[in-house]
């Protein structure tokens, strides 16, 4: 992910927008806060100069594709490309309407982890640099060095698709998946007794403010009308009782079975630090174990929940 790739990305995006091959480009630009990037959605060729590739391009931009008219060029990391494919499988977008500018990715830096390790907030840090497996953080005179695995997002540590599987152009050289690190948080949770685990989630969901950021940033949450907004019948109290907050996430996780690509966007978006990925990753693993299915890995297969094979027959239904 170095600068020559960024120039290549800008050139590729410009070429397509200028020739009218796409109506718009979706990518990342530098945000208004230090280190933070922001989605750039533009039809203006000059704006494309703002496109960036750096270790902070966290968002899963495929979320913006649903409902767009015409063709769109979009930058996609490995996980994002899976979300795009998942949307194609679900018939939410058409493959021919999307030009995927694939970005091989060695992991995105989790600023919250850096803040925790350094004891300083993001805006108190002068510089963060990644070189290979090392990340250096400059705070005033002080220079701190971390192993990349200490400061990358959890889902990046367990990523099996660092290089997009589905793309039109690949910006940069493919990256091989790293051996899977242990899912520490998930392991700890599973080791808890059921009643401890219940208390854990009760505490976590007591903080939920029901902002629905987890749902709104999720490319797989594309329902036009979410079940939480139903009032006849009302599945869930609109008020943020912890029980309803928890039920919301449980139902959301089940709805995402076979769609969730473990992009980690829900957990990143949560303003009150609820470890949502512990739910979605568990669902991802269950789906993988039961059906040998990784969401978004094959655009030509039907979505998991609509596919059916004879050997899955259960007496209850057949």
């Amino acid at each position, binding site marked *: 992910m170095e600068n020559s790739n960024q120039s290549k990305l800008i050139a590729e995006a410009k070429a397509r927008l200028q020739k009218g091959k796409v109506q718009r480009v979706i990518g990342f630009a530098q945000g208004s806060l230090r280190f933070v990037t922001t989605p750039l959605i533009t039809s203006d060729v000059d704006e494309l100069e703002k496109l960036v590739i750096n270790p902070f391009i966290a968002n899963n931009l495929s979320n913006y594709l649903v409902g767009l008219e015409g063709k769109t060029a979009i930058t996609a990391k490995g996980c994002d490309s899976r979300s795009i494919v998942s949307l194609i499988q679900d018939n939410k977008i058409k493959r021919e309407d999307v030009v995927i500018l694939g970005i091989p990715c060695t992991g995105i830096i989790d600023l919250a982890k850096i803040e925790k390790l350094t004891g300083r907030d993001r805006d108190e840090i002068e510089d963060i640099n990644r070189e290979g497996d090392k990340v250096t953080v400059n705070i005033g005179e002080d220079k701190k060095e971390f192993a990349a695995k200490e400061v990358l997002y959890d889902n990046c540590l367990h990523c099996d698709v660092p290089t997009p599987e589905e793309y039109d152009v690949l910006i940069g050289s493919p990256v091989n998946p790293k051996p899977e690190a242990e899912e520490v948080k998930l392991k700890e949770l599973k080791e808890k007794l059921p009643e401890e685990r219940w208390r854990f989630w009760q505490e976590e969901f007591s903080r939920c403010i029901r902002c629905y950021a987890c749902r709104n940033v999720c490319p797989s949450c594309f329902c036009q009308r979410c079940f939480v907004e139903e009032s006849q019948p009302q599945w869930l*109290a609109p008020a943020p009782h912890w029980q309803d907050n928890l039920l919301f996430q449980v139902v959301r996780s089940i709805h995402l079975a076979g769609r969730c690509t473990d992009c980690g966007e829900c957990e990143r978006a949560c303003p009150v630090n609820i470890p949502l990925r512990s739910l979605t990753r568990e669902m991802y693993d269950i789906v993988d174990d039961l059906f040998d299915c990784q969401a978004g890995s094959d655009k030509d297969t039907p979505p998991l929940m609509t596919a059916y094979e004879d050997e899955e027959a259960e007496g209850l239904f057949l």
Partner: protein
Amino acid sequence: MSIIKKIAKKDLGKLLDEWSRDFTVFSPSKASGIARMEVWQGGEASFLDWYRNTVIPPKDIVLPLLEEMFSFSKSEEGYKLETPPADDSKRLIFGIRPCDARALSIIDMTYGDGYQDNYYMQRRNNTLLVGLGCTNPYDSCFCTALGGNPHDTTTMDVMLTDIGDGLLAEAVSQTGKELLQKTAELKAATEEDRTKAENVKQAAEKKISRNIETEGIAEKLRACFEDKEFWQQTAAKCVGCGICTLLCPTCYCFDISDEKTEDGGVRVRSLDSCSFSVYTKMPMENPRSEKWQRVRNRVCHKYEYYPMLFDTIACTGCGRCIRLCPVNWDITQTLNSLPG
């Protein structure tokens, strides 16, 4: 004669203990897993080490995310309504930032104007604000653009300034004056302390670089209300979640719902957000069914409608909506790029 006193940082815990005898004292805490104001539990006041501002704004103490309005039940004798016991406990919010305190005065305009919202006003009137000026504002802060500053005393009862080894306490309101006078833990401040505090205030103000031009902003917004293309572009990357509203210190909208119990029910109100499409959903019509309309509403409510109603912008520049936005949607960029 203004009252100015001082407390050494190492004695802050004792001060909060003393105040806890007369008040439910709230102070910055991360005990719940997120920075918010929580009831002081005693011990060392270590929050000064990390506290810049809370994620959950202190409005939460006077306008909770969720509260019971009353319960109702039906029996053979008929229907019965029961209101929860009035909460007249005295509260003290320690360390509230100037942006968040001023935000309460903005909510007061709606909840105390004409119709008095008892639920809110009772808590509000029983709450003392002991503010703490900012020495290290975030890069998302822009209070100075809105008539505030990192040591603004508006709405405060007492204002504290961090002078290194201690906090200088200055009475702002009559209640604040009485509080400082009777507090044993507070010591007299020296002339040197006051000079230090002045320097701290000036230094903090210089640290704020984010700005918006508020001159004529309501008129500008009125002029571009119908500019659908502008608002669509502006709203394009917004994901439509409720972070910027629910965690805004001035947003006060709520929803009311009835929750069934065995023999009746409970009427609750919980914070609502104009970012949600269901916020304006009516049986036949939704005047803000599109995201760009909702984004426009949020901006206009703060910067056009509130000034129209109360001659005040309903934003204090706390920067939470910028800092916490999952896609870095930045209201200052929108306000600085209004057409015309």
